C-alpha cells in the first residue's frame, strides 16, 4: 500500500502503446482496465517507490502509506519534469508542502565545508 488512481483525471495515456504507470511499475502491478483507466492489481504488493506517481502525465496518481505506518491523511503527489521532479506532500489538515528535486544533468553546487 499503496497508490490511488483518480479516475476522473486518468485518461489511460490516450493513444500511447500502454499507460506510463503500466510501463514503469517495477512490480508489474499496474493494469489498464476495460474502461480505459489505470488501476493497481493489489496495493499489498506495492513498494511505495512512487515511480507511477511521478511519471503520470495527468497527475492522476497519489500515494498514501498504510495505516500501520502513518495513521491518516498524508498524501504524496509528484511530477517528473525534464531536469527536476516536483513534489507535493499533503498534510493531515489539508495544507500542502511543495518540494523540488534535481533529477538529471548538472547537480546544484554545494560549497565545501
Amino acid at each position: 500500500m499503496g497508490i490511488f488512481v483518480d479516475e476522473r483525471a486518468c485518461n489511460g495515456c490516450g493513444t500511447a502503446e500502454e499507460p506510463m504507470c503500466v510501463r514503469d511499475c517495477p512490480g508489474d502491478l499496474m493494469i489498464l482496465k476495460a474502461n480505459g483507466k489505470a488501476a493497481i492489481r493489489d496495493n499489498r504488493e506495492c513498494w511505495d517507490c512512487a515511480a507511477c506517481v511521478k511519471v503520470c502525465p495527468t497527475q492522476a496518481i497519489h500515494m498514501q502509506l498504510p495505516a500501520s505506518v502513518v495513521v491518516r491523511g498524508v498524501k504524496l503527489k509528484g511530477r517528473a519534469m525534464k531536469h527536476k521532479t516536483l513534489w507535493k506532500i499533503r498534510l493531515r489538515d489539508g495544507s500542502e508542502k511543495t518540494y523540488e528535486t534535481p533529477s538529471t544533468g548538472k547537480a546544484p553546487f554545494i560549497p565545501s565545508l
Partner: protein
Amino acid sequence: MIDIESLQCDLLVIGGGAAGCVAAVEAKERDPGLDVVLLEKAHIQRSGCLAAGISALNAYLTEGETPESFLRYVQRDTFGVVRDDLVLSMARELNEQSHRVEAWGLPIARDEHGRAVKRGRASVKIFGERIKPILAKRVEASGVRVLNRMNVTGLATRRGRVVGAYAFHVRTGRFVAVAAKAVLVCTGGAAGLYRPSNPGMAAHRMWYSPYNTGAGLAMGFRAGAELTSFEYRFIPLRIKDAIAPTGEIAQWLEADQINARGEKYLEKYYAHLGGKRMTTQDRLYATLLERRAGRGPCYLDLGGVNPRRLEGTIRSYLSMAPPAAMIMSDEAYYAKHGGEMAPVEITGGEPLVVGGHGLSGYWVDERRRTTLEGLWAAGDVAGGVPKKYASGAWAEAVLAVRDMIAHARSQTAAPELDEEDVLAERDRVFAPLEDSEGLSCTDLEERLQKIMDEYAGGIGVGYGTSEGELKIARLHLERLEQEVSALRADEPHALMLCHEVIERVTVARVLVEHMLHRRETRWHCYQERLDYPERDDARWTVFVNTRRARDGRIEVLERPVVRTPLAVVLPSLTDGVGVVQRGEG
C-alpha cells in the same frame, strides 16, 4: 501446449538493474558488432532496487582514499573474511564508472573545486531520483536488444556449460529460450525470505526491493554453481516504520545514535566494539543490546539539527525513499502545531541475502567468472565483496563484460540448446497454470517467512539462532519444497509470483545450510549462533560455500581466505577491532 520461441545472441544479460544496464552498454561500446540481449522482469525504466532512486554513491574513493584503503575498510568490517582480489579489482573501477554514469546525466554534487561532495569516507552525495531512467536511456540508445517483462526462470546448460537461459513474458505468457555465447547474471539479491518488518497492507514497506527474490541465485544453484557466504545475511539498520536508510541523517546531518536516556550509547557502553567506529553489524547489535539493557529504543538525534538542513533531508528522501519523506513531513506538522516531534527511531529490518551489502552470492574469480563455464555474475547476486553498492555493481559489470567479450569472440560455432532441457524447463515453468488442487503463492510465502523468522533467526527472535532451530528450519523447508508442485496460477503475472516464491524457498534452503555450518558468531545479528556465541578466528577464518550435488543434496565446502600482499603500508587498526591476517601470502 505453450509454443517455444528461440532466440540467439552473443552476450546475454539477465536482469536490467544497475549492473545489467551498464554491462549491456559496455558490451556495445566495446564492440558494436556484438549482438547483446538484455532480459528484464519489469521494465528497465524503473526496475530493480534503484527504482525509487538513490541519494549517495556509497562506494567511491574520496580524496586521499585508495583501492588499498578501501580494502582495509572492508576487511575491518567483515573481520577479515573477504575476497581481497575482488575488492581491489572493483575498487580500481569505482570512480571511473561513477563519472561515466555522471556523464550520462546522473547529477553528482560537487563543490567549488569540482570535487564530489563527501557524505562519508567512501560516500558522495548525488541527486539520483532519475537514476534508472538515465541508465535505461543509455541502454536504449546503444543498440542492445532489450526484452522487458521477461521473467528468467532458469539457465540453459549443455554438458556442464551455460549456453543460455529460459524466460516467460509476465503479461502474455510466451516462452522464450535464448542461446548465447556468454551469459551474465545480475538479478540482484533476495528479499522476502523472512517475515518483514511491517504487517499486512504494509508488508512491502521494506528497504530492499520486494521484487528482487533471488532468481539468479536459485537458477545458479540448480545449475550447479558454487555459492558463498549466504550466512552473512545483511540486516539493514533503518528508520522504523518507513524502513528507510539512515545514512542520510547519520552521515549528512551528522546525527548521533542515542538511547532512550539521550546517551550516545555507541561511545558510552560499547567502546570495546570500537565505539563510534564499530563495524556496520555491531551498530545494529549495540542497538539491540540497548533495548535488552532497558535503555531502548534508540534514535538518531536530530536535536541540534538546523531545520533548513532537515528540509534538505526530506528532499533527499523523496529522491530515494518517498515514504520517509512523508513520515518526516507529518512529524514536522505535529511540531509546528505545538505537538512534540517523535524522534527518529531506528531498528533492524528483515535479513537479506544481498551481495552488494553483504558477502553472499556467486563464488566468482577476478574476472567475475562463476564456477560454471559460460556464466559470469555481477552486482548484488555476486559474493565475496560487501559494500559494493550501485557503483560497485557498475564496476563488476564492466569487469565481467570485458572477459565475456573475449570469450564470445573465441566461440566460432553458434550456441545451441539441449532440446530435452528446453522441454523440461517449459513444463516446470508452466506447471502452476495446469489445473491442480491449488495452493496460493501467498499461502506458501507466509509459511516460508514464518519458518525463517522463527527458526532461522528473523526479526521476531532478535536474529539469533542455534543448531536445533536450524535443523527444524531445514526439515520444514524440505517439506515446503515438496509443496511447490501444488502452486497454482491462473495468468502470467500470478505465474511470476509463484516462481518468486519457488526461488525464495531454494535460496532459504541454501541459506540454512550455510548458517548450520558456521559454528561461531562472527558477525553479530547478521550471523548470530546462540550456541556458539564467540568469534573463533583460528577455525573459522574461511568462506563457507555450497553447491548442488548430483543427487540434488546441498554440498557444503570451505574455501580459504587468501590475503593479497599490498605494496603500500596501511595504518594499523588501534581501536580493538582486529583484522585477521591468517592466510597471508
